[in-house]
């Protein structure tokens, strides 16, 4: 009954375990890029990853038909995209073509991992003249050859609920901030009689670093400020005014539900708007896919209000959007550039912008008669005439985190009942500046 198991056998078995595991369990991914196959990482634009695959497939099929080059597509959720890109940069295990958030352009440019669009390479993707100017400017740091070109254009706009406007006897969407606050106050009311408002004038992602930073930029520009001047410049008088005004929407004017201070995933304020808890939101055009997914179409779109008188520039949005880059390590640079050319061509842009509710980045696409709706015109005007890029600096990502977080902190103070004075705002902005300085 007793069987001897030699020690040696166990030893070799135990050391071999690793190998066995390697052979049996190593079922992970492996990119086999054949000669003619390109890998493409797309960002998640529509309601879901699966949805995006369906949208992109025909566009990529048309590319394969034209060129004979197959494309292997992976759609990556936003929460993971930046990590995946940096992982790819550090490991060299990268796709040929990929989408990036355009505010990351300068940052990723510095890694040296992307093909610069200059000379023949720029011509290969259609040349500078193809693109909407404000969007093209986001491609990289000023004075350097861009390493990304725009793919989807986006801009903020004011969404409002016409039924609520009508009920409150408001005819026009507000054009100035003063009108905006008045309008919003009329729309903030207690509908069920419990003494507390349950409908608000405005909903916002007050806990979101990104939206907070964007509006610090937009309002800062209107006040004549600048977030970055050879370094962080958050505590300048203009920027402090801008942030104070933004926070006061909740703190002073009380036109935003304090609950919004917890909103940070980019969809909760849209939920409030859809559910009739708020009459207005300021969102990028892609919010329309979210509303469509919730079967909601009772909204109109207007331009973002402006200061009157306007001390600074007539900016209503940052030049938002998604850019597209080619990895240096690609074995098929020609094919990769062709793919970029294809996706940014006016024809595909018409298709993609309708599917994803984005704005075309090719100027010619705007001539298409399918894109002549009133809301499209509004978004287009904002992007082409009233947009300026977020600072084109490598530290942009970090700036959005640090600045946005400190503004979210001010909202948290306001929501939990503290007063937010101008001095508080200045202190918070100074603190954010020191943090930026210290970390770089």
């Amino acid at each position: 009954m007793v069987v001897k198991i030699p020690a040696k056998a166990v030893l070799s078995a135990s050391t071999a375990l690793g190998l066995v595991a390697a052979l049996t369990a190593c079922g992970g991914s492996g990119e086999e890029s054949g000669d003619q196959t390109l890998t493409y990482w797309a960002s998640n634009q529509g309601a879901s990853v699966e949805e995006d695959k369906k949208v992109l497939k025909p566009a990529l099929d048309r590319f394969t038909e034209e060129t004979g080059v197959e494309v292997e597509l992976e759609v990556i959720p936003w929460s993971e995209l930046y990590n995946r890109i940096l992982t790819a940069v550090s490991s060299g295990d990268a796709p040929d073509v990929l989408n990036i958030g355009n505010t990351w352009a300068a940052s990723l440019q510095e890694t040296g991992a992307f093909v610069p669009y200059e000379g023949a390479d720029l011509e290969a993707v259609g040349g500078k003249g193809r693109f909407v100017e404000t969007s093209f400017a986001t491609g990289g740091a000023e004075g350097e050859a861009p390493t990304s070109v725009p793919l989807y254009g986006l801009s903020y706009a004011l969404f409002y609920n016409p039924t609520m406007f009508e009920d409150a006897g408001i005819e026009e969407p507000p054009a100035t901030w003063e009108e905006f606050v008045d309008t919003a106050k009329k729309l903030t009311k207690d509908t069920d009689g419990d003494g507390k408002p349950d409908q608000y004038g405005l909903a916002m992602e007050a806990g979101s670093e990104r939206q907070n930073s964007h509006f610090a930029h937009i309002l800062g520009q209107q006040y004549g400020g600048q977030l970055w001047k050879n370094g962080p410049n958050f505590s300048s008088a203009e920027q402090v005014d801008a942030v104070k005004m933004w926070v006061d929407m909740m703190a002073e004017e009380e036109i935003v539900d304090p609950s919004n201070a917890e909103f940070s995933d980019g969809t909760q304020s849209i939920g409030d708007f859809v559910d009739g808890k708020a009459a207005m939101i300021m969102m990028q055009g892609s919010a329309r896919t979210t509303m469509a997914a919730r079967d909601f179409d009772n909204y109109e779109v207007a331009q973002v209000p402006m200061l009157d008188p306007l001390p600074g520039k007539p900016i209503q949005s940052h030049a938002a959007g998604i850019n597209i880059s080619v990895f240096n390590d690609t074995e098929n640079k020609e094919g990769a550039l062709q793919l970029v050319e294809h996706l940014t061509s006016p024809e595909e842009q018409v298709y993609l912008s309708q599917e994803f509710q984005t704005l075309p980045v090719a100027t010619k696409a705007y001539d298409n008669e399918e894109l002549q709706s009133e809301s499209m015109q509004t978004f287009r005007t904002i992007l082409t005439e009233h947009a300026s890029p977020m600072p084109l600096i490598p530290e942009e990502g970090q700036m959005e985190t640090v600045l946005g977080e400190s503004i979210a902190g001010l909202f948290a103070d306001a929501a939990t009942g503290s007063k937010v004075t101008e001095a508080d705002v200045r202190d918070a902005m100074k603190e954010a500046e020191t943090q930026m300085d210290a970390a770089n």
Partner: protein
Amino acid sequence: MSTTEEPRSGAAEEDPPTEAGPASGSRRRRPRRPGVLLPYGMVLPAAVLELLIHIIPMILGIYIAFTSLTQLTIRNWTSAPFVGLENFVRGLDPSGALGSALFQSLFRTALYTALVVGLSWVLGMAAAVSLNTKFRGRGVLRTLFLVPYALPVYVAAIIWAFMFNHRDGMINRLLVQDLGLLDDRPFWLIGENAFWVLVVVSVWRLWPFAFLMLLAALQSIPEDMYEAAAIDGASTWKRFTGITMPMVRPANAVVLLVMGLWTFNEFNIPFLLFGDTSPDSARLISPLIYEHSFVNWNFGLGAAMSVLLLVALIIASAVYVRMVLPKGSSND
């Protein structure tokens, strides 16, 4: 923490085995030569894995703390510039913006650890003492109490985040609508309360572990010790302090240390409750380092801060081991 685990059967065994194998008289029929290599062969897989996954990456991490590794240099990370102590000077200077935030966070994490470990121990002990007696439903409760520990940590965090939602969450519904204890719904996941939410969720998740370990320790106390004390007329409390506490002392020492280390390094719960960046009031040290490393992409700085964390833990553990753990022998 290692003195207690020192194997009992070989308490005095620093000397190398003689070629004839361990010479402990009574045993005659030892296998011969393989005996010398056998122990090494058996610990080899563990040693290799520890080396590859724990030790070498740690050393590499310490090295990174002396370089300026950022997203700009990550592509060719082996040649990231060596910057000496710069990361430490910038990150750990208590008068600088980063350093003061770091030390605040360190202090906060210490407080958090003390609260979570303390509360978990108290709850675990109370439950263990209660369930170490016989009554109906004991088995059911024992199983129920272990559920939070068996639940994946992300599931626990998801549920609690859902419950603590300001406008629609269960907690505010209970406090404001149902019990009427408060007029206004408080915020939990932002502002000052976030710290307490963190403590509550962490305790919920951790106390079953204390309960499990302490219950096991209680069950190994011989019943007759209590009976003898009862005959002497000792009160319940006397029996607890006179018998139970001393008897579970070795278990306690280890349980507290393990829970302390886990809690001090806690990353999952704040990350799942608050996302990439925690509210100021609840920013623990691991999420803070994560923020510097993986949100702001300054790996050198993050690594320097982790080295400080490691040093703090080593010192704390060493002091703890000296003060709390029984010296020398660890016999029962």
